């Protein structure tokens, strides 16, 4: 398949749109012929190839399924004899869970590939029909019987037919790219579920990676519908590299701290701090502060939200929300950083529980001052200010951010933006989203993705909220995000596909 299929389809769409706008009785035949030339490029994709790939994943699911129960039946202490029995039990349990998820992931991949194949086959069928109909319409208008001569009586018919057929072709190519975006979203979701593999790819020992991959944030009342791993998949991949980059003595000291941890949860948060790039001295103080704490204390103090599902997000009875009408962006930034850095979260949660709200408000005021050196704070924060602040903390998040406008009156722009958002979130990077009505008004933070849903943190209510992807695409976000339309996104640069722009208005 050609590597520039996507560019070709985009070009065809553009040219067909131009042809439609130029269509008039004078230029009718020449414009229609140009449209015909564009239609020589069929909607890209090969249904047979996709179905063969789907079959391979379906076979792999069937091949792995019988060994799931066999892993459950292994006796850990005798097998992983080099490590403590309790750890060996954890390794067996985590491996069993990981192996159990594999057939489901492979079947989901097979389904996505089959659905994409069906969509492409239908697009190609419609394309062939439309192309044939256009060719016949041109022939009727340029021939009287079999004699090549303009047929004035047929020109009106051609005018109507050409406009309808070109519009039909635009729909086919638009659908082709939307289908690709939808498939890409499913693939991103599945890639994000391969957590242990990400850790091993980054250099972690396989047993460590499997156990760490299974550690999740657990706040009472919040489910596990979305990936809420203590370490995101990006952090699992980064952890091994961070350890490798440490001086030998520091690495040995970190090893000692990890060995002394009293639980897998404590160990996971300590290693999350390593992934966030903290030096050995800060890690030692952090390890001392969290040593021996129970899981509830660790989750409450080392994260600001639980990304597992829709819920009110509070700490010590106080909502994690914006403290005035202008700090939705600020609050989204603070949550994004806290999700990457447990030391930063601890800086806000440590101390008297009744003082949490005051500490969060003080941090919101400080961050808002930082992002708005010139821009008036009562106008909120610009997307550029949001991206700049995220980039000031790229050593912690492991990525740099850029922003771009989203034209949600154009299906292509919003579909492409949704793909960027879910790809980033599935890789473990939260995404600030600017929403509004006529003008930009409000920020929310995308923190999860599963199936056809996004999970956003909504800073006005201090809650995580499920958002159907269709609402994102259709500009119907009011009920969940306060305003209907997506107007800009701030995404990791590796996932950005749009153009940077400027803003005349800013959100709260």
């Amino acid at each position, binding site marked *: *398949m050609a590597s520039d*299929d*996507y*560019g070709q389809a985009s070009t065809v769409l553009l040219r067909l749109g131009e042809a439609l706008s130029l269509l008039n009785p004078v230029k009718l035949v020449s414009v229609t012929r140009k449209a015909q030339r564009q239609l020589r490029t069929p909607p*890209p*994709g*090969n249904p047979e*190839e*996709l179905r*063969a*790939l789907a079959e*391979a*994943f379906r*076979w*792999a699911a069937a*091949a*792995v399924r019988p*060994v799931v129960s*066999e892993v459950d039946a*292994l006796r850990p202490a*005798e*097998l*992983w*004899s*080099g490590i403590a029995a309790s750890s060996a039990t954890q*390794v067996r349990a985590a*491996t069993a869970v*990981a*192996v159990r998820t*594999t057939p489901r*992931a*492979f079947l989901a*991949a097979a389904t996505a*590939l089959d659905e*994409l194949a069906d969509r*492409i086959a239908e697009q190609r069928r419609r394309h062939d029909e439309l192309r044939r109909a256009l060719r016949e319409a041109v022939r009727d208008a340029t021939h009287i019987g079999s004699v090549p001569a303009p047929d004035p009586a047929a020109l009106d018919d051609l005018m109507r037919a050409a406009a309808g057929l070109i519009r039909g072709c635009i729909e086919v190519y638009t659908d*082709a*790219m939307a289908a*690709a*975006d939808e*498939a*890409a979203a499913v*693939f*991103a979701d*599945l*890639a*994000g579920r*391969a957590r*242990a*593999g*990400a*850790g*091993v*790819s980054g250099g972690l020992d*396989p*047993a460590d990676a*499997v156990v760490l991959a299974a550690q999740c944030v657990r706040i009472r009342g919040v489910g596990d519908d979305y990936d809420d791993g203590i370490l995101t998949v990006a952090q699992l991949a980064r952890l091994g590299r961070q350890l490798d980059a440490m001086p030998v003595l520091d690495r040995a000291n970190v090893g000692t701290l990890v060995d002394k941890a009293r639980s897998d949860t404590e160990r996971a948060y300590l290693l999350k701090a390593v992934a966030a790039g903290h030096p050995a001295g800060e890690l030692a103080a952090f390890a001392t502060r969290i040593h021996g704490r129970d899981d509830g204390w660790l989750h409450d103090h080392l994260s600001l939200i639980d990304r597992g599902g829709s819920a009110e997000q509070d700490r010590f009875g106080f909502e994690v929300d914006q403290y005035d009408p202008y700090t939705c962006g600020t609050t989204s930034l603070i949550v994004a950083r806290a999700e990457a850095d447990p030391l930063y979260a601890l800086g806000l949660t440590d101390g008297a529980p009744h003082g949490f709200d005051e500490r969060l408000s003080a941090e919101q005021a400080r961050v808002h001052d930082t992002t708005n050196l010139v821009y008036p704070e009562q106008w909120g924060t610009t997307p550029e200010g949001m991206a700049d602040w995220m980039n000031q903390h790229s050593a912690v998040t492991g990525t740099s951010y850029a922003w771009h406008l989203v034209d949600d009156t154009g299906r292509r722009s919003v579909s*492409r933006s949704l*793909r960027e958002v879910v*790809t980033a979130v599935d890789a473990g990077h939260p995404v600030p989203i600017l929403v509004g009505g006529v003008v930009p008004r409000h920020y929310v933070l995308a923190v999860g993705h599963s199936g056809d849903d996004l999970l956003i943190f909504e800073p006005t209510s201090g809650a995580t909220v499920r958002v159907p992807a269709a609402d994102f695409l259709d500009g119907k976000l009011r009920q969940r995000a306060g305003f209907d339309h997506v107007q800009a996104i701030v995404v990791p640069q590796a996932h950005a596909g749009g153009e940077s722009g400027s803003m005349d208005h800013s959100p709260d």
Partner: protein
Amino acid sequence: MDACDIADVLDGVRGRLETATGEGCGLPVAAAGYERMRQAWLAELAAHAAVLREACDGQ
């Protein structure tokens, strides 16, 4: 099955899946995501097999 047998099965699935799914899948925008997903799950299978291989070597 012992840990060695299970590791062998997973390694075998990984090898065959890698061979059978090596081509791209249509639009580059989907093909890039597809390839990331494919590589992620090949690595995941390798991780599972490696953990079991550690146990296998300990037997």
